[in-house]
């Protein structure tokens, strides 16, 4: 039985994404999945022209997003997006992206 379980675990390692969820899906994580659509799946670079966000330093992202929100930092579409998020939501998003592996 043990051997069987081990086999199962090996199988599962290949089959499952390397992320685990213990207490549910946070608003930050689910909102971040909508960022993936422009910034790359799991925030990873896939060859496009939009900056990837996985592993982005948390404090830098918070500063930049707040500056984009206020208009101090120029953007094309990002100000229109980020105006929809509170400062607390921006901080949670930045924390989540900084936790992703680039």
């Amino acid at each position, binding site marked *: 039985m043990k051997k069987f379980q081990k086999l199962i675990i090996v199988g*599962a390692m290949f089959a499952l994404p390397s992320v685990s969820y213990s207490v549910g899906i946070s608003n930050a994580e689910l909102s971040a999945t909508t960022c993936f659509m422009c910034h790359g*799946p*799991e925030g990873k670079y896939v060859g*496009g022209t*939009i900056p990837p966000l996985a592993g982005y330093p948390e404090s830098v992202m918070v500063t930049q997003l707040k500056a984009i929100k206020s208009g101090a930092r120029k953007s094309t579409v990002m100000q229109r*997006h980020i105006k929809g*998020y509170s400062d607390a939501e921006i901080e949670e998003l930045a924390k989540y992206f900084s936790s992703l592996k680039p």
Partner: protein
Amino acid sequence: MKKLNRRAVIKAVAVSSVAVPVASSLTGCVTDGVKSQTEANPAGSNIRVVVIGGGFGGTSCAKYLKRFDGNIEVTLVEPKKTYMTCPGSNWYLAGLTDAKSITHDYTSLSDIHGVNVVHQRVSNIDAAAKSVSLEDGTILGYDRLVVSPGIDFKYEMIEGYSEADVDKIPHAYQAGPQTELLYKQIREMKQGGTFVIAPPPNPFRCPPGPYERVSMIADYFKKNNPTAKIIVLDSKNKFSKQKLFQEGWDALYGDMIEWIPAIDGGVVTKVDVATKTVYSEYETIKADVINLIPPQKAGKLAFDAGLTKGDWCPINQETFESTIHRGIYVIGDSSIAGKMPKSGHSAASQGKMCAAAMVSDIHNWAQPRPKNVNTCYSLVGSDYGISVAAVYELHDGVIGKVKGAGGVSPMGADDAFRKMESNYARGWYKSITADIWHS
């Protein structure tokens, strides 16, 4: 398919047992069978979700169900082995991208995420028995069902036009052979000829789509058929990103494009397919190429399954569960999703929200209350991009726009700004299709 059939029967018998028998010789099902025995995440084990429709909504939902809970057994049913996207198809019409770049398959979904991908057409949904019958006779039992059937056309609204005529007068609003046909017709059009496009009335898939198409065909004509004429016979008096499109048309294409709104008689009432004649109050036009995009309604499957009220599918806008049939979720163009437009980006976003809501429900987790987005880029020219964006959240059971956010690109922006957004348009395409089909 017989294999799946047997498996479906086994699963149907074993619904309530914890350890599902594993038919280990079934390729493609092995990982799922193993996972359903791991009990790492017991709540999701043995839950069978069938997703119908392999577009932006369905594929995204299937992938994210697995991402949020790898123990759920997910089957995606999509007749096509490869999927050409509507986004990017206008760029293809202009010759700015090739067909291969906008065509995707489902290997990542099965190989990386362990989704069972079944290339079959659905013949029936039995909501009472919780099963989906496929045309080859397979019956897939489910605990929950997601349908993402896209759109269908109300051909009967235009006199003289029917589904049988789409091989002569394409709508090209479901990408694939229809796109290829319009691509060919544009290129075969005589020098100085007339191209008529008739955008549909609201609501319809991809509100800026017909106008990006006008732009992209103008881009092609400018280079290859500079005396050609484009006449837009519109069923509406205004359209998405209108001022931006018109600013771009003036800047790039001079007087090649003429837009006739409904108020000036732009509504197409009749066509003569044989003579390529278009009838509207404005005038009767003998065209060389016609792109008629008929009024729209939910995909046929939604009607067959009794999920519609009027032309579209009413849903609980928090979970995307049908308000008509419990246990069936409707996402994408067919759904009535508050203020969200019918777009690939919306559908993909909804696929994720639906997956998260379903997984949270299965596990008895608190329902997440995320913000949700739509981003839509259009190319007016190869180096001329414009965008519209919105952020959404649930208000009193309806998906509404977050005030103060969203909107369109600025008018009068400089070339560098337009160029940057054209680059981002391509970057968006790369990322969203990678998110859905390639990762």
